C-alpha cells in the first residue's frame, strides 16, 4: 500500500495538522509520500521531508495552487492517483473542501473525519454530532479519507530528510479565482492544537465585553480563545474561534466554557478535552453534565476573579 498525504500549509510553514494526519496515515501501513501543493513552498516541503516515516515529498508549485483552490488542487492530486492506494488529508477547511472532489473524480466514497484506524480498510468516525460512533469498512480499490486531527498525536520530526521531487501542477481551467483573504493574526496559541482553551458564549453580551472578560483569562493561562456559534453569530467573536460540530474540534488538556449553555452542537467540538470547567449562572445548564468542575454564578464576577487568582498564584 502507498499513501499520499496532502500537506496543510500557508506556503511558508507546515501546519501541525499534517503531522497529526501522518499518524493516521502511518496506521494504514505501507509507504507514505507527502504532497505539498502551493506557490514558493519549498520550505514547507523541507519541513514535511523531515517528518518521521515519510519516504518522499512531492512538490507541486504554481500560481494556480497559491491559495489551495479546490479545482486545481483536486486535479493535481488525481493526476498522481495511479501510484497510490490511499489519499489522506487532515479535516481542515482545506482538506474538507478538496478531498470529496478527489473522491468523486476517483469514483469512491470519502471516509470523513476518521478518529481511529481499525484496519487499513476499516475506520471509526463520529456521526450525529458525535452522539454515535460508526465503524465503516471500504471495499474500494482506493481509500480517500480526512482525519480528525484532535484524535491523533503529531508524528515526530527529526527524520533524516527524505527526497523532494517536483510534480506537475494542474491549472484548474480558470473555474475559480482567488479574490482576498482576511485571516486573523494573533500571537496566541492555535485553537486546534492549544493545550488550554477558554471559550465564551452568548452570555458575554457584546464584542467589547467578550474582549474585556475573556482575553485577560486567556492571557493568564497562555490559552487559545474559542467561542460558541451564538457568540460568533452575534459578532462577539470571529468565526474562526467557533468550537463545535460545524466549527473546530478541540481536545485540549483544559477547556473553560464561560456563559455557554452546552448545546449538543457545541459539546461535539470539546467533549474530548481532558478536563472541562464550566462557568454558568444556571445550575441546570447542560454544559455541567460534561464538566469536571462546575462554578455556578455570574461570569462577569467569576471570570475576572479567576484571572486575578491565577495571576496571584503565578
Amino acid at each position, binding site marked *: 500500500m502507498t499513501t499520499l498525504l496532502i500537506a496543510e500549509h500557508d506556503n511558508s510553514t507546515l501546519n501541525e495538522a499534517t503531522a497529526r494526519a501522518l499518524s493516521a496515515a502511518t496506521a494504514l501501513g505501507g509507504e507514505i509520500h507527502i504532497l505539498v501543493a502551493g506557490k514558493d513552498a519549498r520550505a514547507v516541503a523541507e519541513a514535511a521531508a523531515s517528518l518521521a516515516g515519510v519516504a518522499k515529498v512531492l512538490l507541486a508549485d504554481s500560481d494556480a495552487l497559491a491559495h489551495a483552490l479546490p479545482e486545481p488542487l483536486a486535479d493535481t492530486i488525481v493526476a498522481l492517483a495511479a501510484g497510490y492506494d490511499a489519499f489522506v488529508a487532515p479535516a481542515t*477547511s*482545506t482538506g474538507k473542501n478538496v478531498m*470529496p472532489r478527489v473522491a468523486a473524480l476517483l469514483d469512491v466514497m470519502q471516509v470523513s473525519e476518521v478518529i481511529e484506524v481499525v484496519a487499513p480498510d476499516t475506520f471509526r468516525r463520529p456521526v450525529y454530532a458525535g452522539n454515535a*460512533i460508526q465503524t465503516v469498512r471500504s471495499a474500494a480499490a482506493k481509500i480517500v479519507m480526512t482525519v480528525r486531527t484532535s484524535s491523533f498525536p503529531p508524528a515526530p520530526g527529526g527524520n533524516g530528510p527524505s527526497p523532494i521531487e517536483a510534480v506537475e501542477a494542474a491549472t484548474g481551467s480558470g*473555474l475559480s479565482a482567488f479574490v482576498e483573504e482576511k485571516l486573523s493574526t494573533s500571537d496566541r496559541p492555535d485553537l486546534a492544537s492549544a493545550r488550554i482553551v477558554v471559550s465564551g458564549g452568548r452570555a458575554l453580551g457584546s464584542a467589547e465585553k467578550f474582549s474585556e472578560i475573556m482575553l485577560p483569562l486567556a492571557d493568564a493561562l497562555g490559552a487559545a480563545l474559542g467561542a460558541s456559534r451564538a457568540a460568533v453569530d452575534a459578532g462577539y467573536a470571529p468565526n474562526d474561534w467557533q468550537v463545535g460540530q460545524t466549527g473546530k474540534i478541540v481536545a485540549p488538556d483544559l477547556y473553560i466554557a464561560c456563559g455557554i449553555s452546552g448545546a449538543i452542537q457545541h459539546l461535539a467540538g470539546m467533549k474530548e478535552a481532558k478536563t472541562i470547567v464550566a462557568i454558568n449562572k444556571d445550575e441546570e445548564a447542560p454544559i455541567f*453534565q460534561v464538566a469536571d468542575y462546575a462554578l455556578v454564578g455570574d461570569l462577569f464576577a467569576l471570570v475576572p476573579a*479567576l484571572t486575578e487568582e491565577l495571576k496571584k498564584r503565578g
Partner: protein
Amino acid sequence: MKILVPVKRVIDYNVKVRVKADGSGVETANVKMSMNPFDEIAVEEAVRLKEAGTATEIVAVSIGPAQAQDTIRTALAMGADRGILVQADGPVEPLAVAKILKAIVEAEKPDLVFLGKQAIDDDANQTGQMLAALLGWPQGTFAAKLELADGSATVTREVDGGLQTVKLRLPAIVTTELGLNQPRYASLPSIMKAKKKPLETKNAADLGVDVTPRLEIIETREPSRRTAGVRVGSVGELVDKLKSEAGVL
C-alpha cells in the same frame, strides 16, 4: 436564473439521538424529522435572490423515502417553485446523491446549485464538492456571503484561519455556512399555497444511478460518556483542584 436546492430530511437538530443497543444504528422510530438546518439556509438564500429579481425559478430536490415530500413541501412553503423527489428507501451515500443530482442538473440546467455544507446526520460534508467534481464546475464551500454579477458568483468562505473570498464562473456550486442568513419561518398561508405547487417523483434507477452503498457500516456505538464532576465553591478552590487534582495547570 435558475437555482437548484437539494434538501435532506434528517433527525431534527433538537432531538437527542439514541443509539440502538444492538449496534445496528440510531433510533429513528417516532423521532421528529426536519429539513437539514444548512439546507434551510440554502433555500432562504435562493428565495432572497428570487425576491431580489435575480433568480427566476427555484427547484427543491430531495433524495429519500416518501416522507421526504414533507421536506420538499417545507422548501416550497419557504418560496421554492417546484419539487422533485427521488425516492429511495435505504440510505443513500453522498457519492450516490451527487450522481443523482448530476442527472437532475443535466435535465434542469440550473445556473447555481445551493447545498448545505453538511448534513447533520452523517456529518459527511461531501455532497456539494462531489457534485462540483462530477459536473466539472467550480465550488464555493462554507459560504458566509454570496454576491452575483456578470456570470460569476463571489463567495466569502469561512475557513480555519478566518475568511477567504473566491470568484466562481457560473454555473457553480455553493454550500452554505450558518452565518449566510437567518432562514424564515413559513407562514400558514404559504404552507397552504405550497400544497398546490408541483412535486414530481422519480427513482434512482430512472436516472441510471446505482445507489448501492460503497461503505459497509459494521456497527454504530455510543461514544464514551463523560460524567458530571463536582461543583466548586470559589475560584480559589477551582485553581487548587486544577493544580493538584487535575494536574492541568
